[in-house]
């Protein structure tokens, strides 16, 4: 699983990042790099079966809290 992830991202980086870097589009490159790092870490975490906390839970708690406050 991990091998696939790394292989896939290596391919992607060749395809995506190098042209951007070559064409000297710095802003695009850096934004893309940041996004790439985020997605790469997420992919690794998922492939290692590490639980990433879901924002849905947090939203649920916040909304329930607000709803209760309004109901009061």
């Amino acid at each position: 699983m991990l091998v696939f992830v790394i292989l896939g991202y290596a391919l992607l980086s060749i395809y995506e990042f190098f042209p951007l870097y070559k064409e000297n589009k710095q802003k695009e490159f850096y934004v893309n790099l940041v996004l790439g790092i985020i997605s790469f870490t997420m992919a690794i975490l998922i492939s290692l079966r590490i639980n990433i906390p879901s924002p849905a839970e947090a939203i649920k708690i916040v909304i329930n809290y607000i709803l209760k406050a309004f109901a009061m």
Partner: protein
Amino acid sequence: MIRERITDKEATCLLILFLLGSSILVGIGVRAKNDAWLAGILGVVFFIPFALIYARIQSIFHGRDIFEITILLYGKVFGRILIIIFSWYSFHLGALVLRNFCEFVHVESFPETPLIVITLCFITINIAAARSGIEVIARIATFCLPVVIILFLLMEILSISTMDFNNIKPILGNGFSKVADVGFSSFSFPFAESVILLGVFYTLKKRESAVKVYMKGVLAAGIVLITLTLVNIFVLGNMIEDYYFPSYASFSFIKVGDFIQRMEGTIAISYVLTSFIKSSICLFVACKGIAAVFNLNHYKFIVIQTGLIMAYFSLILYDNIEEMVDWFQNIYQFYAIPFQIIFPLFIWVCAEIRNRSEKRDQSGKGKKGV
């Protein structure tokens, strides 16, 4: 870069498919049981003023996308915060739709296939679509809409024999308040989600078309959704809320003679098409938003990574389908308020004020000139 243009018809198709996406899958207003159709109608009625507001925003600033509008109205700093909020919603919605659809495939067809595989397969087409631009998405929408509508009509006609029209009774058996409550949730899902399309309709050709597109699209999608809900009620009756995917279940009863049965696989085609269009638009708008925040020249460079993050995000959103359905039914309508109601109202009010003052300026100038 050639400025992209879409015709009114394409835009309407886009809007209809966007509204149908994933709402035909999980059904609207199922909590209201056999009054779900009333809830659907209420949802449309609630939404019409908002549709007018959305359209008004677009027609005041014709030719500009919502991101340019926001920065124009609120300046670079506060405008960017608003853009982040808007793109977050688009991103989140895209992930929801993706999850929804992939969960459907996972549950109904491929229980043994890991969800991540299905999700990655589907995000590839979304990425491909978002990269090819809104014109291509719009054109593919015109291609898909007849397919979707014809399939639905066919299935609905075929399932007449399995319908029990008494299922609709009693009307308003649980009281109006329940229906109104569910009506609100069917307002926020799917109708008011079309706020996302503010990031798309800058491509419209004429200033007036936004109103036309919004009204036509919402009414058409409403009619399709409400007939579908009625069919579901007629076929499933009170079992409607027991199914995660009611329309899929109700079409599974179709039998034509002894030979053709289990037709529900066919309807999966429309699920794929509508969900694909919806999540592609969400991905497109989210990417445009990110590009606007960082002031990038073109959104295309970040589509792949954003799409991948969206796929992973959709995976970690919920642990299982029950959680997803629960969140959809109980939390989503409140969660969506800031994005669907507050944000557009904010923009609209400000835009109107600005528009008035500009007009006054112009007329004042004109008088001076004379």
